[in-house]
């Protein structure tokens, strides 16, 4: 079966909501990291002892989810449901082909290892 790697950048404060919608869609496996980035949203304003700072890189959370092909649509739908506010800065989802996946403990490969 074809495998995909889904990478999503979302607002940090929407992570909890996204985790819950993914859980309801029966997507239980994910990696989460902090990331910094900028898109259309540009910077927000922060100050230190009264002096303004332009912060160009915004805090985002990066989700990585490896799935079999038949799970791609429902994973994307769940991320959108949890992360979408309609405001600028909601984030982006990338879907990549994933040539191989190996579970280290059992040395299983491919779709077996992902599921």
């Amino acid at each position, binding site marked *: 079966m074809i495998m995909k790697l889904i990478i999503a950048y979302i607002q*940090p404060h929407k*992570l909890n909501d996204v985790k819950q919608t993914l859980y309801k869609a029966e997507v239980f496996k994910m990696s989460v990291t902090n990331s910094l980035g900028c898109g259309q949203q540009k910077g927000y304003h*922060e100050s230190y002892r009264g002096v303004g700072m332009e912060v160009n890189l915004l805090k985002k*959370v990066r989700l990585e989810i490896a799935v079999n092909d038949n799970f791609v649509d429902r994973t994307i739908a769940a991320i959108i449901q949890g992360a979408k506010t309609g405001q600028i800065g909601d984030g982006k989802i990338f879907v990549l082909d994933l040539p191989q996946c190996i579970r280290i403990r059992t040395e299983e490969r491919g779709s077996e290892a992902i599921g």
Partner: protein
Amino acid sequence: MMDTMWVLITAFLVFFMNLGFAAVESGFARAKNCVNIMSKNFIVFAVSSLGFLIIGWGLMFGDGSGLVGLKGLFFAGGADNSPAIGEAYKGVYSAISWTGVPLWAKFFFQLVFCGTAATIVSGAVCERIKYVAFIAFSFAMAMFIYPVIGHWVWGGGWLAKLGMFDFAGSTVVHSVGGWAALAGVIILGPRIGKFDNGHIKAIPGHNLSLATLGTFVLWFGWFGFNPGSTMAADANAIGHIAVTTNTAAAAAIMSATILSWVLLGKPDLGMTLNGCLAGLVAITAPCAFVSVGASIVIGLIAGVLVVLAVMMFDRLRLDDPVGALSVHLVNGVFGTICVGLFAIDKITGTATGNGLFYGGGFKLLGAQLAAVVTVGLFVFVVAMAIWAILKAVIGIRVSREEELRGLDIGEHGNEAYSGFQVFTTE
């Protein structure tokens, strides 16, 4: 001279407890709210200093009715010939004329206690309260709630006349702060995510090193809080009080640690730290009235109470991020009752009469219970009214999005740990 030195040095120790509270509260909360908590703990002493000077002192110690002081209300400006004491005293602050130190030494010592009562509220309402609402409430604490109760107990008011004793403030400081905090916790509601789908969720503090440092600072400051409340360098009393204070803290640390080990499977550091504070709060009222042996018993029970109370408030769906209710309210009440149980007449000179366990019957215990009930009712009702007014006029809770992102950015535009990787999502 010795007395004035003692009163001021212990007052400075109590001032230092502001750092203790700031460190404990921010350590027990999340990184994204650290700036906000530090800001609240810092500004609250400024608020107390001004509020207590403007009218708090006068309401508390001015001669007046059994309910409130009426003379020399503003800027501690009434007639006064301190350090004259007893019959020689000619002034309007006669309730505190028993101590032979100058007026401003009395004022400063009482001020740092007022600051402590106000700062207790901060921890219980943290991670969701608007900065401006907290500042407004703190003014109400320093200018009305705390001084009125202070007048009842320490200012020659009706509880003092009834024969109720609170040496250093289990009732006046800790339970007052605790009841006001309880009203705030109820009206604010829990933090987002604390009670999801009927489950109690742990929201771990971000820096237990800071919480430990703060607890040590508070423990240290308590050697000013309790022994200083003699307001005189009374050689016998201050040694006795230092030892009862420390012994209760030590016993409470042990019992809280052991109980959390048994109930939770591991010795939770947060419970050990709160156990220490629980013992200190509980011994605050009785420290000068009980034996060192009794202080062990009081401490052991306080440590058990704090662990059970933390779990009880969670089950009641009352979200207290730092355990302020379990420490200050529950053990403030318990310590007040302990005077009625364990007091030994004139053990350090004060004629309290004996407590129930020493053959004194129910007279002292009755007065202590009257204080627990009336202070609780008054503070809870007044605090609830003030919170409700603030909620209607300026709002007391930040928006959902701000709470999730953290109050540091939303309220202050600052980060506590700029340059560090901080997860701001939980």
